[in-house]
């Protein structure tokens, strides 16, 4: 009971502090106070309740479909190992399309209604669940698979009796992180032209510069997501029965293949993607006016004028995203290292970091832009905040992976904390750091395009917002295709750096 009481005490203290700061702050355009938020909630109870219910239901369906898809994909990859590389490449590619870019396209395909919200919710969750679930499915010692073989049992039996159960704690971590992500996806779906929901209200509050409403909506979204996060965590603890140490991301696999093989594989996947794109459009007989095919996009991009518009917008976006990406990674890893040097601080910071992981960060984007402006700094902060928390949590976990005996060896020689950090702990952290750096690439692009679409009116986000309203579907599809390519290429570059660095510092991670 004591920790709960203490946590409640801390919450009350923070609320009081916030209230006091808001009162003495002269700039009421920026900061809303808890009392103002409470007043807004009381005044708009019905509206907020309806919007929250709408968004929650959409998010829930997105959560269900996305996680179901992830589980099916994971199981297929385990049962048919040959499908693994192609399926994971496809899954990554789809994940790399920023939600704010697929949103308008889904909107035209689905028309009005909740289709896009649910679909975006599903898209927002499936990849992280797939990754954690796969790590779980593989977290099986060879002895267990040998045991199954001794009795002549095959892959299916091993899956049912061993892998499924072993993956359970990992699956629950994936589900837990999915809860805020599904919420985020549903809200982004609502940004792109829904009629009801928290996303719609957020958009309205932003446009009307209604500070109290913006803050209230962010707080409501955060509370609902955190509640879902804790409920799933609670259920998971009951279902699993024990608390295993879990690293959230697998190291990039590097099966030693010849470079021509890799090229051939890349070519195969590219052709497969184009074929899937074309055939899915044809299969549903979608109208060519808004459902563009690969050929249309190619023809469009061959016009120099179109290309110039798109690429200059892209350049602007990337010039904002890159510094934010680097800042987010640096601050996340730096803070994790700092807390190792000073363990007493860590006890205070960890619960905050875990709580903030449950907040759909995008909902804070409007607030951050209000605070830091529509220029480089505002955008950078949004991107950095989006990346900071997952990186921080992963690096902390990585630092804890330093084998105890190594730490003891250093201590027995009287080595200082800095020395230990540099020589043993940072190398132990690197795999987790790079894994989160890879995952942060799509997250950074999502953050930058969303904030451009919503708030700053710049770059490729603005371009997509404009083309969505002027029905310039060629430009819209081209933006999506180019963004997906950029994200995949950047992801690949980070993975290459990862392999190069890990080969030196953590060779056991590179199989």
């Amino acid at each position: 009971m004591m920790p709960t009481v203490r946590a409640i005490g801390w919450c009350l203290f923070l609320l009081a502090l916030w209230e006091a700061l808001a009162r003495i702050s002269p700039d009421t355009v920026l900061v809303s106070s808890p009392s103002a938020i409470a007043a807004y909630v009381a005044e708009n109870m019905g509206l907020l309740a309806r919007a929250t219910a709408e968004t929650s239901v959409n998010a829930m369906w997105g959560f269900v479909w996305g996680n179901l898809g992830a589980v099916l994909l994971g199981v297929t990859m385990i049962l048919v190992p040959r499908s693994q590389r192609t399926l994971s490449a496809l899954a990554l590619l789809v994940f790399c399309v920023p939600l704010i870019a697929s949103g308008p396209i889904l909107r035209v395909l689905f028309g009005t209604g909740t289709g896009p919200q649910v679909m975006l919710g599903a898209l927002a969750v499936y990849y992280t669940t797939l990754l954690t679930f796969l790590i779980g499915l593989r977290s099986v010692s060879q002895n267990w698979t040998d045991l199954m073989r001794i009795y002549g049992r095959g892959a299916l039996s091993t899956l049912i009796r061993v892998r499924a159960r072993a993956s359970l704690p990992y699956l629950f971590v994936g589900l837990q992180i999915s809860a805020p992500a599904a919420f985020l996806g549903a809200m982004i779906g609502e940004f792109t032209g829904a009629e009801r929901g928290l996303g719609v209200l957020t958009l309205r509050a932003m446009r009307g510069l209604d500070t109290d409403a913006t803050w209230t909506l962010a707080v409501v979204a955060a509370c609902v997501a955190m509640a879902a996060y804790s409920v799933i965590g609670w259920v998971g603890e009951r279902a699993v029965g024990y608390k295993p140490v879990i690293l959230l991301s697998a190291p990039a696999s590097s099966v030693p293949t010849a470079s021509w093989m890799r090229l051939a594989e890349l070519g195969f996947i590219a052709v497969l993607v184009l074929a899937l794109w074309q055939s899915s459009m044809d299969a549903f007989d979608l109208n060519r006016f808004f459902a563009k095919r690969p050929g249309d996009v190619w023809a469009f991009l061959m016009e120099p004028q179109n290309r110039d518009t798109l690429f200059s917008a892209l350049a602007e976006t990337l010039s904002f995203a890159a510094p934010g990406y680097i800042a987010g990674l640096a601050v996340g890893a730096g803070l994790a290292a700092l807390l190792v040097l000073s363990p007493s601080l860590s006890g205070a910071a960890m619960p905050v970091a875990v709580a903030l992981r449950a907040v759909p960060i995008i909902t804070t984007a409007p607030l951050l832009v209000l605070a830091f402006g529509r220029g480089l700094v505002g955008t950078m902060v949004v991107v950095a905040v989006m990346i900071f928390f997952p990186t921080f949590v992963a690096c902390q976990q990585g630092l804890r992976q330093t084998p105890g005996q190594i730490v003891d060896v250093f201590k027995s020689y009287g080595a200082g904390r800095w020395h230990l950090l540099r020589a043993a702990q940072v190398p132990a952290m690197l795999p987790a750091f790079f894994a989160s750096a890879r995952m942060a690439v799509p997250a950074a692009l999502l953050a930058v395009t969303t904030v451009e679409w919503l708030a700053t009116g710049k770059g490729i986000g603005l371009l997509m917002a404009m083309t969505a309203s002027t029905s310039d579907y060629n430009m819209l599809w081209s933006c999506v295709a180019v963004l997906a390519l950029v994200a995949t290429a950047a992801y690949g570059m980070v993975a290459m750096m990862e392999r190069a660095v890990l080969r030196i510092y953590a060779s056991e991670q590179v199989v």
Partner: protein
Amino acid sequence: MPSVDIHCVDVSKRFGATEVVAPLSITLEAGQTTALVGPSGCGKSTLLRMIAGLEDPDTGEIRLGDEAPQAVARRGGLAMAFQDPSLLPWRSVRANIALGAELARKPGGDVDALIDLVGLGGFADHRPAELSGGMRQRAAIARSLISAPDVLLLDEPFGAVDAMTRRRLNAELPPLWRSRGATVVLITHSVEEAVLLSDRVLVLSSRPARVVADIPVDLSGTRDARLLETPDAMAVSRQVFAALEAA
């Protein structure tokens, strides 16, 4: 009663550049217990894993009766206690032991009697994490016995078991598998144990493993600790030690 003999014909195995098992041919008779002894790292576990069908030999062939090991495995005729107990952490001791029968598609028989026999009475509902290393190993032995296999492979099954329990298990378990006519291969580092439990001791050389001595153990009388003090048993022990020294 099924009786399955084990034929290894010109079997060899290498991992990369290291030759682990040199081409060797042996036949282990049905219903007999054979002990494999040899220096650490010489390839005993590798040979056992090949007999189990977990590794394919690079050359030669292994037959259990007239079947391939995998075929015997599929009909539930094989069981093995690994050097590492490898229990499933989410199952209780009882459920872990029952798993052996479940996987072999055999009726479990009396799980609780077997639990008592390996001295785990009172721990049936505990999870593996709550047991000591020796207790886990005994649970793994029980799991391998529950399916009444035709071929039973034991890789240092008593390594972590305390001396007194080991002595008791050495006396009580062999009659169980002998009465079922099982063909047993036992890896052990204890020469006394090899002599006490087996009908035949094969001494393997250091890597790559080859058979340096094939010593029959013909002892009359009940096989318990007292037997080891008889002159016959001591003579066999001396023979094994001598072969090990030469290996």
